Structure formats: C-alpha cells, structure tokens
C-alpha cells in the first residue's frame, strides 16, 4: 500500500536524528556477476557480493550542540564505525514498520553543501560493512 514518507525514523549510534533528515534511502545491491557462456543468446546474471548502503540528506547542523555533527563527524575523524537504524514510519518497530540495521564506516563527511540561498545540507552516504539486516523486533534508537 502506498504511503507518504513523513515520519521515517533514523538513528545513528543510538542518537535519534529523524528531525534533521530531509531524504532517507536504504539501498541493498548485489554485484551483477556474469554467467554468460559462449554461444549464449543473452546475458546470464548471478547475484554476487552485496554492497549495501544508507543514503541521507540532512539539514546541516554544525554547531557545538549539533547532534548530527557530534555523532558522525567524530567517527569520521576517528575512522570509526557507526550503527545505523532506519524504520519507515516512526520508532515503534513491528510487522508494519520493520527496521533496517547496518554497521557502517564513515568514509566521507560533508558538513556543508548547497548553493547561495539554499538551506545548508549535509549529504551522507554510509556504506555497510556486511549487509543490511531487516527485523520486525527491537528498539529504535
């Protein structure tokens, strides 16, 4: 059933950051391994190694009290890993609102982005070490 994405819950390292998020994307991708043999009439495909990621576009929050900066920037500087949890409709997890979890190194950090007159944004792509897991139990953040 269609629904409007307006209350997507996002937590990074146990900090609820939903109210800073303008765009949220959970991406699960597998490499496309060719199994095409000689004489084949078309390409053969096999799902290879997964390459999952979370992508966010957040309002920039670079003040000392900024939760996004405080949570992610320090991990980037320390070359650390963050736990990411995303649920499509609020923080009460269940069959109608599953949670996606991944553990991600912070490989890029863009504290400010945008053109003159725009809201300053922080685009954030977090590649997952391993794969994203989906669960209908647990808590967020």
């Amino acid at each position, binding site marked *: 059933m269609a629904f409007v*994405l*307006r*209350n*997507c*819950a*996002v937590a990074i390292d146990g900090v609820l950051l*939903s*109210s*800073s*998020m*303008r765009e*949220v994307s959970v991406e699960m991708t597998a490499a496309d391994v060719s199994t095409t043999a000689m004489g084949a009439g078309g390409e053969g495909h096999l799902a290879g190694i997964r390459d999952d990621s979370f992508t966010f576009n957040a*309002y920039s929050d670079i003040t000392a009290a900024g939760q996004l900066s405080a949570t992610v920037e320090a991990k980037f500087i320390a070359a650390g890993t963050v736990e990411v949890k995303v649920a499509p409709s*609020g923080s009460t997890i269940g069959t109608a609102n599953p949670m996606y979890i991944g553990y991600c190194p912070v490989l890029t950090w863009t504290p400010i982005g945008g053109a003159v*007159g725009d*809201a300053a944004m922080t685009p954030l792509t977090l590649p997952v070490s391993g794969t994203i897991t989906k669960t209908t139990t647990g808590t967020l953040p």
Partner: protein
Amino acid sequence: MSSLLTSTFYGIRSGIADNLRSISGLQVLDFVGNQVTPPSADVRRGPLEYDQAMDGGLHRPTMLVRVYVSNVTDQGSQAKLDSYLDPDGVNSVKAAIESDRTLGGVVDDLHVTGATGAQTYGLEGQPTMLGSEWTVEIWL
C-alpha cells in the same frame, strides 16, 4: 522539533517590524492595519511548507512585508520605492530585515529572497497605492 506556535509568530512579526523601524520615516505595523498612511509597512503571513524534515522536524514558514509609498504617479514616491528596493543602504528593506537574522533569538535564521517590485494595491476606501512586497523565508 520545529514550532509553529502562535506566540512564535508574534515574536517573528514584532522582530521583523523592529528591524524595519531602522528605516527613517517608515511607519511599521506588526499586523495588517485597516488604514494605510504611507510610507508604511506591515508584516503578514505568507505560504507555509509543512514537513520539510522527517518526524515534523522542520516546517518552513514565509513572511511577507508589504510597503506602501503613496499614490501611483508621484515621482518622489517612485524614487522612494527604488531606495526601499535596494539590496543595501539606509532605506533598504532587505538590509533592515536582515540586520538581525535571528530576530533576537526567535528564529534560527531568515533570508529576504525577493521583492515583487513596483505594484499597485487597491485599498478599500483609500486611493490606489504604489508599493512592493518582500518575501522573507524563515528557518525555525
């Protein structure tokens, strides 16, 4: 979480009006008045964009500032409107509004993004007025 309380908008109106009072000779009202005595300005609500971040984290209100200068064909009034439309200078409406971008801490930021340029406004019981309307984006 972004607040759209009525009391917040009292603060926004009065903050914008206070900033505009730095323009010499311009009468400023926090709300739309029933009698216009030019040159004068009032502060009114503009369009509102809800749910610009997840979980009600950001709503984007816009305020409008309308300035009336006088009757339509008076050259002095047109020149005065030119000075109000300047992006900076002592009569600049944009510069005056942006002189305190947090309105004393009521908002996170504001930005005067544009003005309509010279417009004519029909007012009940009064002559048609020359003026302009400025758009003020508010970040709460």
